[in-house]
Every structure is written in C-alpha cells, then in structure tokens.
C-alpha cells in the first residue's frame, strides 16, 4: 500500500507545474539574476587595472614615482597615461581613460561618469593628499622626526589584532545565495500543503475519497510525505548543483554536511507547509498566502535582499531572528562555509530539528482526527 500511494503521489507532485515553478525554476531564475547582479558571471571576477591619465606639471616627482610604481606588474592598480591636459581630455572623451589626475597645489580629478573605478581614483588622491599634507606638516614643525617618516609610513600600525576564525574568506554575497537556498527549502511547504490536502477529507474531494478507503490515515500521510520529501530533496540537489557547477558559488568543502543540512531543511519546509495547511481554516489561497508571506519575509530577514538585515535583526530583535526558520537554515549553510569548528552548525541543526518536530507534531495532532464536524 505504501509503495502504491508513494508511486502515484510522486507522479502527481512531479506533474504539478505550479509547484515545480516555485520550487525549482523560480529559484534558478533568481540565483542567475543574483549572480549577474553581483558581477559573478559564471566565475569569480578579477580586478581590472584602471585606465588613468595623469597630467604631469613637474611639481611633484614623488607622486609621479608613486603612480608609476602602482602601474607596474600583473597586479597593477593603474594603466597609466602620462600626458598633457589636452590629450588627457581627448582620452577621457574617447572613453580610453576613466579619469584624469591633475597635479598642482591641490590635486584635481576629472571624470565624466560615476562608478567603482572613479571612486577608487578619488579615494587614492584623497589618501595621497592627506598623507602628503601630514608629512609636510611634520617636516616643517619637527624636522628632527623627518628622518623617521619613511619607516613610519612603511609600517601599517594597528592596535587591533585580527584573529581569523576560519580559513575561508568572509564573503557576504554568499548570504544572498544561502538565504535563496533556504527560501527554496521553505517553498517545499507547498508540497507539504499538497500532501495534507490529499488526505484531509474536509479539504478536497480526492481526500474524501481516500478516507472512504480501507487505509490507515497515518499510512496515507507517511506515503505521501515520503514522496514529497523525495521530490523536494531532489529538486534542491539540482538547485545546489546549479549554484555550484553553473554559477560557481563556493559553498566550502564540507559537501556531505551541506547535503545533510539540505535534507533537514527540506524536512523543515515540508513540515511547515503541512502545519499551516492542517491548522489554518479557510481556502487554499489563504494558506498559500501565509506560506508565501512567511517564506519571503523569512528570506528577507535572513538577508536575501540585503545581507546586512540579517545582522540588524539578530542584534535589534533576537526573538524575531529566533522564530525565523529561514534564518536557521541560512546560518547552517554559512557556518559550514565560514567556521572551522562545528559549534554554530550544530546549534543551527538543533534549531531546525526542534522546529521540524514542533511543526510535525502539531500536524499529526490535527490530522489524526478521522471524523469531521463538517465537510
């Protein structure tokens, strides 16, 4: 009986175009857009040297020497054009340089558009002007210290000690992808909803027909939810494969644990959908609305639209972060990526397990009822 129901539920879920869109195609589309928006393309982007024109007035040999040194080598900051003002303007209007640096009493930067390269140029000349001014002031007021300046400038003193907790580089853009993956797990709630609709006689005609049959309710539920688990977990593995192999998102090296976390996330998503469907009275539209709202709001608060919001919520409203299932999922993935230890991951797994147990328990409490006051 289990096999019979499982087989047909599997087909029904696989042929459900609406669920297929929300739980597979929509996340793939969104992930692709994220990838393009973050400029990841299909591989990590490398820094490109900025085409810069410097108008040499002959006043500051040190600056010329500095920009020349920054324009040499494979990891150079600038592609330097030392030229006259007229030529520099021609290069700028032709789009061959991103900015013109003019030396003089006050350094001037000329650009014809705003962008990341122009911001770097502005930061560079501001830093240079600030440092040059400090050096000049020290040399004028305390000439005896001038001899120590080159050594002081070379030494980048800091009073904070950086103690890395991870071998991995922090990458906040990953939070977007982790929360997107978590959101997709939560969209599995639609499958949980379908399974409850298929066995609760007061929710659909098909379920009423199931209830006329000589099959135990729990057996119906377990067969159906197992099919939903297989379908949703497979879709999530496909989505994960798309993220890793097509979009080149680095999820770290703990593949086995990521897949295990994904399995638990799938269970959490399904149980949440089943919980909402069994508990909320009303039309399917209302239940879908609740599922979608909680999922999207949870994903937003976990950093899907703006990575910083995750930390704002965790700092300013910890209870809200605590009850957000998407946050537990996102945390599990990020902790696997970033932390070398397992403490944070285990905490996230425990959180998800508790939520899954609560949702599943409450669902069973409602669906164990076999007679209805009304249909």
């Amino acid at each position, binding site marked *: 009986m289990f096999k*019979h129901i499982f087989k047909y539920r599997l087909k029904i879920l696989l042929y459900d175009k609406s669920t297929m869109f929300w739980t597979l195609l929509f996340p793939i589309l969104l992930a692709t857009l994220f990838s393009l928006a973050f400029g990841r393309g299909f591989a990590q982007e490398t820094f490109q040297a900025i085409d810069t024109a410097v108008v040499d007035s002959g006043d500051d040999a040190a600056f010329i020497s500095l920009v020349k040194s920054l324009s040499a080598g494979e990891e150079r900051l600038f592609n330097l054009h030392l030229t006259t003002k007229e030529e520099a303007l021609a290069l700028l209007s032709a789009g061959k340089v991103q900015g013109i640096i003019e030396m003089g009493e006050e350094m001037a930067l000329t650009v014809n558009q705003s962008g990341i390269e122009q911001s770097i140029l502005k930061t560079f000349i501001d830093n240079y002007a600030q440092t040059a001014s400090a050096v000049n002031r020290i040399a004028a007021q305390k000439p005896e210290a001038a001899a120590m300046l080159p050594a002081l400038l070379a030494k980048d003193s800091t009073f904070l000690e950086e103690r890395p907790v991870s071998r991995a580089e922090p990458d906040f853009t990953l939070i977007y992808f982790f929360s997107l993956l978590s959101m997709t797990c939560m969209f599995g709630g639609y499958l949980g909803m379908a399974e409850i609709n298929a066995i609760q006689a007061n929710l659909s005609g098909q379920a009423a027909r199931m209830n006329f049959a*000589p099959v135990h309710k729990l057996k119906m539920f377990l067969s159906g939810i197992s099919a939903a688990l297989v379908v949703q977990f497979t879709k999530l593995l496909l989505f994960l494969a798309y993220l890793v192999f097509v979009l080149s998102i680095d999820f770290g090296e703990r593949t086995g644990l990521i897949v295990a976390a994904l399995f638990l996330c799938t269970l959490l998503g399904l149980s949440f959908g089943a919980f909402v469907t069994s508990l909320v009275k009303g039309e399917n539209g209302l239940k879908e609305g609740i599922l979608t709202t909680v999922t999207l709001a949870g994903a937003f608060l976990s950093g899907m639209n703006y990575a910083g919001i995750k930390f704002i919520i965790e700092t300013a409203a910890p209870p809200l972060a605590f009850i957000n299932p998407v946050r537990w999922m996102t945390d599990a993935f990020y902790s696997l990526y970033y932390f070398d230890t397992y403490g944070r991951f285990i905490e996230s797994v425990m959180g998800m397990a508790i939520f899954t147990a609560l949702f599943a328990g409450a669902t069973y409490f409602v669906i164990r009822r076999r*007679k209805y*006051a009304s*249909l």
Partner: protein
Amino acid sequence: MIIKATNIVKRYGELLALDHLNLELGEGEILGLLGPNGSGKTTAINCILALLTYEKGEISIFGKPMSPEAYDLKKDIGVVMQNVAVFNELTVLENIDYFCGLYVKDAQKRNQLVQEAVDFVGLNEFKKFYPKKLSGGLLRRLNVACGIAHKPKLIILDEPTVALDPQSRNNILEGIMELNRKGASVLYTSHYMEEVERICSRIIILDKGRVIASGTKEALKEMITLGEKITVEVNALNDAQLGAMKGLPNLLSVSLSDSQLVIKSRKGKNNLENILVLLKEQNIGFGKIYSELPTLNDVFLEITGKELRD
C-alpha cells in the same frame, strides 16, 4: 441488512441537518434518497460512511458498527461522490488504478478490475487522456469508475448525474442498474425524481433532514389523495361552465390558466369519461386532452406544500 441507520441526529451549529433519520438498505436493493438541495442527503451519506460526526444514533453496515477504522467494512464499499474527485496529474487509467489500489493489493487482479471498470463506463478510447481533456460527461463516468472499480458489495452514489446531458445520464443510470443486477446493493441520492423512479426499488423522501415518506414508488403514490391529473386545452370557459366542473365526482381541484384546464381527482374508474361527458353537455370546445398519474413531485408537493425542485 446492508445498511441500518437508526435515529441519526446531526447538527451544523443551530441547523438541524438530520432529524432522527432512519434508513435501511436491504441486500440487492436500490434505495433512492430523494429530496431537494439542502434536504440532508449528502450529510446522511457522510454520516453513514463515518466521515461526519453526529450527535445521536447508530449506524451499522453489513451488520457491524461503522467507524472510520472499520477497514473490513470499507473494503466492500464503493463511493461515487457528487463532485468529480480525480487527480488532474494522472491519466484516466492511472486515476482508476490509484483508487482501486487502495482496496486491491494484488497488481494482476487490479489490472483486470481496472480494465473492466474502463470498459464498463465506456472510457476505453480515453484511458490515456488526462482529466482536463475530458468532457463533463466523460469526467462523470471516470468519477463513477474510480468509485466502483474494486467491485464493492455496497455502492453509494451521491447525485452522480448532476449537470449531465441526457445521454451521459442515461449511460450512468443503465450502469447502476447493471451493477445492481450483478449483485451490488445501491444507495442512490438525487433530486431528480425521474431518475429515482426509474432505477430505485424503494425510495425515501427527505426534507429538512427528516424522512417525510418512504416505500416503493407505487406505495408512495398510494399515500396521497391525488389519483389522476387531467389537463384539457379549452378555448374559453365562462363562470357557469367552470362551476359545473366543480360538480365532477372524485374532484380534488379545478383550475384554469392560459387555456389549460387542470382537473385533479381522487382515484376513480371513470374520471376521464366523466369529464368528456361534461365537456359535451356544457358545449365546451376543446383541443388536446391528456391524463397523468401522480409523480413523486406530487407526493412531495402534497406532503410538504412545495415543489421538489423549489
């Protein structure tokens, strides 16, 4: 006794949906549950099938108490619901196989039963179709096949012909009679009195959750005073002529509307002849004249004071 429901009381809040309903279905019978929309037919079925709770009463099927866990009883019951309840993601054949498989584990036996059900409802050429591609009539046939494929001993059909064309309706009614001939006992609900009259061996008339009459169609018609309704097309009728009509023997009522003279009489041997004689005596010109025996609608009308389809 196949079904025995005793004193069932069911409320939806303040509304009394079933008011001490008593119902018995004997082996080999087709019992019709006739009543207008909202009379409690579907509620009665859902209570019998242990899907709905009820405040009072007892229900047994095949002589055993019915409950949601009575799997040994459920395996011999087939249900065809009012609304088509199939999966759009499964083909005709898969839908029948899915629901049949809830009753029959053996795959080989099931394949045979499914094919027989397909043949029975005439969906052979549509068995690979998805439900969305089927017409309303074919969908209803699929709905029937899903309910009866496992060859149950008891078949409960809840208005299976609603919104169907006459041909599809006829197919389904013929099918039900065929199932009955093969040994199934049938509980059939409808608000179409012609259907109930045609296929049911016994009829229960429900109104507002109460049984207002029950028996064979002949017995039900015997219960009422109306024996014959004679309609005469007349050109015109004056008060004196109409007054003379009121002197007819066995007369219950006489009315004239749109040149249609309707005379309702108690049972009597010469009602039509008496009218013809009177028409001649009064020199009343007439066109068509026809006589009808009472219908179940007349039974319902006389008992409740309203039409069955009100």
